[in-house]
């Protein structure tokens, strides 16, 4: 007998990942005509920057956006880099298969992490214009490969439509995508703004943008130092969950639990012994035999123990100096300061570093018709976050800073706050990767970083006010005291006296400063 359930499940079938995302493009950031275009640029530029970084190359990235025909919402986007190039056999997988890539299974700080970015862009092009992506790449071996690739949505596989190979010099990768239902404009959510922000967070990159009207914008390189490539990092014991420990043990190739735990960051033989003493869990048992209850006791033991600060060897912060240089170049501000905080960890011992820079005056701050105010630039692993600002922990943490204490008013003061969160695993709120989840440890670090830098700014503003007052004061006396002296001598019919001693006294230059 056929049950109702049988009937209902007749249509049940397994969806491919790409089929799923085709139906949920919004999750990937493909929502709205401006944002979709920016997302495509973002995915391609991110890939280029990561590739250059891993290869130790100073990135030179060109972004071209051109109109196709008369339809203003029909554009062709090309992103070209001078990176290491892609070996031919990987091309269909890199661009045509989702959740494929070199990053997901490693605890490693990179801009992309889930392996859906660039293939998502290819998919977006495909479903709006029906055209495959054009890839041209060379690894510098004297051979250039050009392919047209699309995604087979049913099978989540790359499909090659054409292939050309020729002899050629140079190295790098160029991807061209044809898009419909997108709009180019220079708003806050535009590729222009996105690339400008990218340039701030990547002072080692040179980025060129060609806009549809032919305007060419160059965001110049400020430092000539390629960031060291990030390295995989082991988990940090403090803050681990029982579940994380069990997962580690299940896949362990070690013979004993003790040896398995040594894989954790900052773990030593003595610490393993201490954990055994505190938890009562025997370290010579096979890791696969660890029970949930034992795992919980171990977690409890780790919480009581002291460990060295988490390793940040895999994290690649931009660095205080580079942030400051970059902000200076971008805003020509009166004041700039930045901080790169010490590594901290959240949730299951995932290390992160908060970097925060502030620029005051010059071109800094929100520039709108209603006037100036605070501008917030959010980054995760150097990649700009420009959408979903409201739901992001960076926004809420900075909103909760009492700016008034630092002589600043977010509504009127001309300042820009630059925030970069570095982590091997950034807790995004969605696959669109535009906002970061509210983890308490991250929230706290953001506030501390803001306060660190704001304190310096307050000092600057205080000195500036003092200086201005002193100059004003001096100016007034320098103007009027000579008049007083001249008029008095005219009244008395005597020679004017030397007024410098009095002038020094009243301008306050005698007592100390200046």
């Amino acid at each position, binding site marked *: 007998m056929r049950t109702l359930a049988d009937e209902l499940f007749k249509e049940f079938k397994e969806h491919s990942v790409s089929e799923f995302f085709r139906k949920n493009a919004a999750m990937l950031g493909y929502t709205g005509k401006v944002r979709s275009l920016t997302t495509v640029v973002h995915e391609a530029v991110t890939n280029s920057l990561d590739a250059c970084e891993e290869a130790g190359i100073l990135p030179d990235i060109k972004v071209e956006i051109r109109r196709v025909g008369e339809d203003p919402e029909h554009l062709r986007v090309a992103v070209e880099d001078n990176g290491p190039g892609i070996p031919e056999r990987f091309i269909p997988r890199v661009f045509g298969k989702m959740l494929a890539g070199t990053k997901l299974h490693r605890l490693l700080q990179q801009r992309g992490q889930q392996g859906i970015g660039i293939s998502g862009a290819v998919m977006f092009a495909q479903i709006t214009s029906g055209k495959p992506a054009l890839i041209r790449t060379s690894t510098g071996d004297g051979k250039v490969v050009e392919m047209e690739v699309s995604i087979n949505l049913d099978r989540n596989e790359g499909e090659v439509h054409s292939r050309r190979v020729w002899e050629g010099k140079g190295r790098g990768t160029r991807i061209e995508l044809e898009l419909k239902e997108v709009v180019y404009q220079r708003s806050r959510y535009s590729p222009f703004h996105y690339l400008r922000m990218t340039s701030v967070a990547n002072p080692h990159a040179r980025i060129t943008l060609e806009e549809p009207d032919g305007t060419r914008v160059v965001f110049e390189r400020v430092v000539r130092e390629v960031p060291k490539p990030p390295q995989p990092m082991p988990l940090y014991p403090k803050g681990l969950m029982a579940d994380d420990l069990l997962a580690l043990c299940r896949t362990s190739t070690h013979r004993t639990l003790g040896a398995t735990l040594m894989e954790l960051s900052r773990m030593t033989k003595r610490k393993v012994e201490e954990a055994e003493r505190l938890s009562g869990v025997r370290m010579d048992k096979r890791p696969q035999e660890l029970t949930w209850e034992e795992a919980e006791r171990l977690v409890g033991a780790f919480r009581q123990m002291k460990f060295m600060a988490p390793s940040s060897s895999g994290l690649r912060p931009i660095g205080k100096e580079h942030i400051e240089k970059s902000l200076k170049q971008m805003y020509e501000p009166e004041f700039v300061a930045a901080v790169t905080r010490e590594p901290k960890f959240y949730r299951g011992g995932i290390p992160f570093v908060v970097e925060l820079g502030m620029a005051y005056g010059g071109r800094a701050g929100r520039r709108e018709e209603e006037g100036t105010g605070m501008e917030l630039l959010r980054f995760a692993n150097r990649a700009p976050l420009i959408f979903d600002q409201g739901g992001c922990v960076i926004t809420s943490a900075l909103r909760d800073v009492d700016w008034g204490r630092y002589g600043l008013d977010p509504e009127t003061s001309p300042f820009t706050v630059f925030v970069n969160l570095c982590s091997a695993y950034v807790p995004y709120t969605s696959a669109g990767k535009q906002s970061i989840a509210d983890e308490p440890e991250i929230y706290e670090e953001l506030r501390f970083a803001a306060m660190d830098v704001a304190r310096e700014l307050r000092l600057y503003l205080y000195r500036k006010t003092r200086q201005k007052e002193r100059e*004003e*004061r001096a100016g*007034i*006396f320098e103007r*009027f*005291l000579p*008049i*007083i*002296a*001249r*008029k*008095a*001598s*005219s*009244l*008395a*019919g*005597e020679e*004017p*006296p030397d*007024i410098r*001693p*009095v002038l020094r*006294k*009243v301008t306050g230059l005698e007592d100390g400063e200046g």
Partner: protein
Amino acid sequence: MERGKERKERILEELRKLGRGVLQELREGRPPRLRIPSRGTSNIVYDEEHGYYVLGPRYEVRSASSMAQVKKFAQTLCVADFCRELVKAGKFATLREMYYTAEGWETGPFRDQDESDLLVEDLEAMLGVKREDLALMPEEDGAAVFGELVLREGEVTIDATKAGRGGYTIPPTIDEVEFVRCRAKRVIAVETMGMYHRLLQEEAWKKFDALIVGLKGQAARATRRFLKRANEELGLPVYLFCDGDPFGFHIAMVIISGSAKLAYINHELAVPRARFIGVTATDIVEYDLPTDKLRELDIARLKQLQRDPRYHTEFWQGEIRRMLELGRKAEQQAFAKYGLEYVVEEYLPAKLREAERGIS
């Protein structure tokens, strides 16, 4: 009364002293300070002995070491030096002219004329001399005078009986005018020009051996200076004949005792020996004058006068009380009820007899 030349030298010396004081402090390396008698209401006191308002002992200090005051300090000296140049050259300027001249000063223009006028008052109070002595003259002419007085303005000699039907107009620079000869024995100053011309037509100046002065309402500074000089320099008694209402009373009182606002210079303006002869409340009853009802404003003003220390005499308190009881007031021209000549034929002779009984 000092001669023009002496006065000029005295003023220049005051200005020199001001300059020397400032220079002295500068030379000693101290930020100079000016001591300016405070003109705030709390520093205005009634001087019983002289019968007018004077400034109390309080001073304001204007310091060149204060950011808020150094500009004003410089401006004060600019005004002083501007006055020095005028006095030296024997020229006069109005307050308004000075205000415009300041456009070219190193201290820059004033915000408005009030600002520059206040500095002139500062200087008057600081030096104890009036603005006319600093060669700054009021805008308006004084009143008119008719009678046997010969005056000299520079090279010109004027007989106040031959200066036209309206008489001699008292100029703002009255202090520069020399009294050459005077046959009159008294001064009769009247509030309205209507009454002034009535007295001239009836030849009251001859009849009473008087200088007749038309005040034109509240007396100008020049008029008050003229009355003071006539009283002190020529030794003539001054009689004041005003409307029989609180405003008439006060026109007389300001001449006698000076105003609170000008307390810093009342010693140069008040004529404490001048006498109010009418119209009194008693006159209204005795002469059965046509009257108007007191308005609310009049009553309020009378009550104000009652409390004013200048009116704290038996005579004034009695007159004010009587007017309040009557609830009526009368103009000086009300005597026309009995014919145009009545005021000269009957009223004034009676009043003058009464007034001079005590003196002669």
